[in-house]
């Protein structure tokens, strides 16, 4: 999710950047070390066959499962509650020890260190953009294999297609999503009514841009729109245009991503529309901080806002009433275009972990992805449930009836087509790609650089990052 890192205070964000730098430095060494081993079941790279239920049945003592995560606040507490319930239900058989590891960037840096010393956790919860790296590190067993070997546990067909799509490569599900967010359009109802904006036009990016101009023209003290200018949003504009962010095929096929794409006609058009709003003074520049964008919207400084679904909770805390959440607008064809998800997924580690531990870890993953746990977790944390069976729950339906924005989020999540464009870019270089893209885009949005030269510069810098990464990883 994009709001997580940007909601951190400056000091923590500096730490996150340091950790990201550390991770980049460590990548070459780690991936080279991983690549050098073709491994057995307990050592080196993951082998093919996943362990089944008999591995856990044969364990003499209770199996300890360690879990690392970067979830704090209500989501962290909700996760701990679920783990406590799991431990109670599996007393004497499985003991889960969960440990908060700082931000997602801190957690993945620690994981990278642990690979080299063989001390990875049994289950790692890591955020969306680390998926490519975790796949390349080769420490984990795929969710697809674990599900096939343990048919009585999680049924992968119950996972929401858009979320499943994000964590799939070569047709194989790598990890099971736990917490999922999506981008949404938030509108201030009163301001839109005063400017006489027709809501039915807000389904497309051009419609939103026209509405933003209309608001600013009718109410000069109010800006039309704001959004956090961080990396997630340029990925969203691309997915909503229906084109891949990295080529070929968003890195989903064998061989992986080799370059970033930012200069396709569809992207040029979508990025250009947004950048022009900012250079014309219709958009409000609140920097890369999701909370700053939220505060400006809550204070009525802008009539509309693009923000993560995580902002629903923030708007409630800010005491904002009289707003609506709408689906993220598209600029491409609805059959291929849509929003990409954010959030984090659960990876089961194999290298250095016994078969019993892997199966116990999979039982935990299955429990956390079950409809009951997902419903409780979603209610407490504000993330969208990833298990489609939650839709049939009467208590969930009652919850959605009382919380309209979550119903919009749920509908968008269910309606998003599982296509190459909406799967987002899968590359181990994604943290570096964001670092390369954001400054260029910020210059384009502030008018310091033309959109074409910024897109070209960002594309070149990010492609160089992908090439460096591939070289270091021996791909």
């Amino acid at each position: 999710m994009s709001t997580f890192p940007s909601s951190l205070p400056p000091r923590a964000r500096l730490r996150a950047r340091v950790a990201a730098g550390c991770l980049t430095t460590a990548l070459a060494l780690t991936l080279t070390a991983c690549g050098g081993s073709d491994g057995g079941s307990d050592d080196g790279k993951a082998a093919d066959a996943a362990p089944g239920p008999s591995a856990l049945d044969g364990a003499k003592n209770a199996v300890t499962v360690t879990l690392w995560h970067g979830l704090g606040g209500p989501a962290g507490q909700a996760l701990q509650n679920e783990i406590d319930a799991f431990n109670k239900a599996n007393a004497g058989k499985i003991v889960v020890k969960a440990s908060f590891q700082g931000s997602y960037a801190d957690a993945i840096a620690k994981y990278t260190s642990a690979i080299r010393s063989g001390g990875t956790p049994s289950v790692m919860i890591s955020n969306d953009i680390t998926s490519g790296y975790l796949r390349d590190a080769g420490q984990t067993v795929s969710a697809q294999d674990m599900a096939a070997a343990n048919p009585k546990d999680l049924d992968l067909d119950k996972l929401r297609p858009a979320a499943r799509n994000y964590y799939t490569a070569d047709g194989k599900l790598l990890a099971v999503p736990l917490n999922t967010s999506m981008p949404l359009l938030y509108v201030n109802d009163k301001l839109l009514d005063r400017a006489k904006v027709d809501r039915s036009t807000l389904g497309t990016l051009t419609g939103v841009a026209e509405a933003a101009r209309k608001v600013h023209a009718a109410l000069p003290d109010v800006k039309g729109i704001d959004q956090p200018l961080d990396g997630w949003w340029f990925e969203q504009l691309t997915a909503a245009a229906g084109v891949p962010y990295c080529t070929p095929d968003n890195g989903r096929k064998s061989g992986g991503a080799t370059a970033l794409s930012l200069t396709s006609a569809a992207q040029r058009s979508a990025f250009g529309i947004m950048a022009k709003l900012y250079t014309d003074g219709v958009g409000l520049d609140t920097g890369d901080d999701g909370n700053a964008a939220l505060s400006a919207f809550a204070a009525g400084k802008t009539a509309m806002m693009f923000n993560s679904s995580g902002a629903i909770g923030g708007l409630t805390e800010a005491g904002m009433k009289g707003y609506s959440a709408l689906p993220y607008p598209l600029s491409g064809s609805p059959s291929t275009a849509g929003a990409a998800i954010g959030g984090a997924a659960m990876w089961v580690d194999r290298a250095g972990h016994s078969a019993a531990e892997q199966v116990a870890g999979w039982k935990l993953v299955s429990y956390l992805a079950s409809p009951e746990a997902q419903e409780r977790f979603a209610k407490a944390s504000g993330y969208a449930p990833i298990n489609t069976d939650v839709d049939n729950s009467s208590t969930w339906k009652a919850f959605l009836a009382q919380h309209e924005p979550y119903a919009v989020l749920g509908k968008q999540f269910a309606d998003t087509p599982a296509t190459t464009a909406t799967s987002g870019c899968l590359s181990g270089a994604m943290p570096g790609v964001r670092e390369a893209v954001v400054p260029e885009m910020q210059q384009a949005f502030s008018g310091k650089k033309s959109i074409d030269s910024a897109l070209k510069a960002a594309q070149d810098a990010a492609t160089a990052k992908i090439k460096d990464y591939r070289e270091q990883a021996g791909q």
Partner: protein
Amino acid sequence: MTRRHAASLLRWLWLGAVVVVVAFPVYATVVTALLPPTDVAAGRLVPRPDRLTLDNVRTVLGTAPLAQQYLVSVAVTALQAAAQLTTAALAAYALVFPRWRGRGVAFALVLATLAFPGESLVIPNFQLVSGLGLRDTVLGIVIPYLAAGYAVFLLRQAFLALPREVWEAARMDGCGDLRALVLVVLPMARPQLVTAAMWCALSAWNGYFWPLLITDSPQRRTIQVGLAQLVVDQVTAPAVIYAGTLLVLLPTLLLVLFGQRFLVRGLAARVTT
């Protein structure tokens, strides 16, 4: 107004501006930590004395592992600073007083360690400490930092400024190297010794990334790691976060307030040497 008065006025204005810039974050932290959450939400930064409260501090201390993490930080700081000071004093003594071939090269190597960013050493350190079986222990947090190049540099410069004759006289009177260091050299370099001790203590107290990496259990983590979690957990209660920050800041503030005499003198002595 004479030119001298104008210059003096400008200097005071400049000093005033610097003081405001430096002191405001500290002031905001202290005030926010001691105000009720409603006042914080209203953006009140000038407190009414009758509304000051210790509730936020109590909430922080009531958050399960934070008090324990405070003790871990105290232990880490004491161990690490004492070890760094000891190794630095021994190394600086060896680099300054006895004459031996290659001590210039040895000092250059010590200085070279300052050029490595700490993050690049994280993975080898992680492997070493895990290999020693010290993961998730206080000793594991401390062990890669038993020596610090900067402290060696600071004390070497201090020792160079001391009159060599005093050391020679002590040696001629039959004083051994260790006694000469403890009884003759260190007492003469007290200001710089205090400066080095403060630097070592502050860097140990403020450590974040390494303690986070090498520990897993909440009760074995340092207060800086606990504070990071507090920030995420209490994102809707800034007053509680500030109260936590105040508790973490307090030892640093006290150290600087009481030690500033030595800090300034020690650093100035290093510069002028």
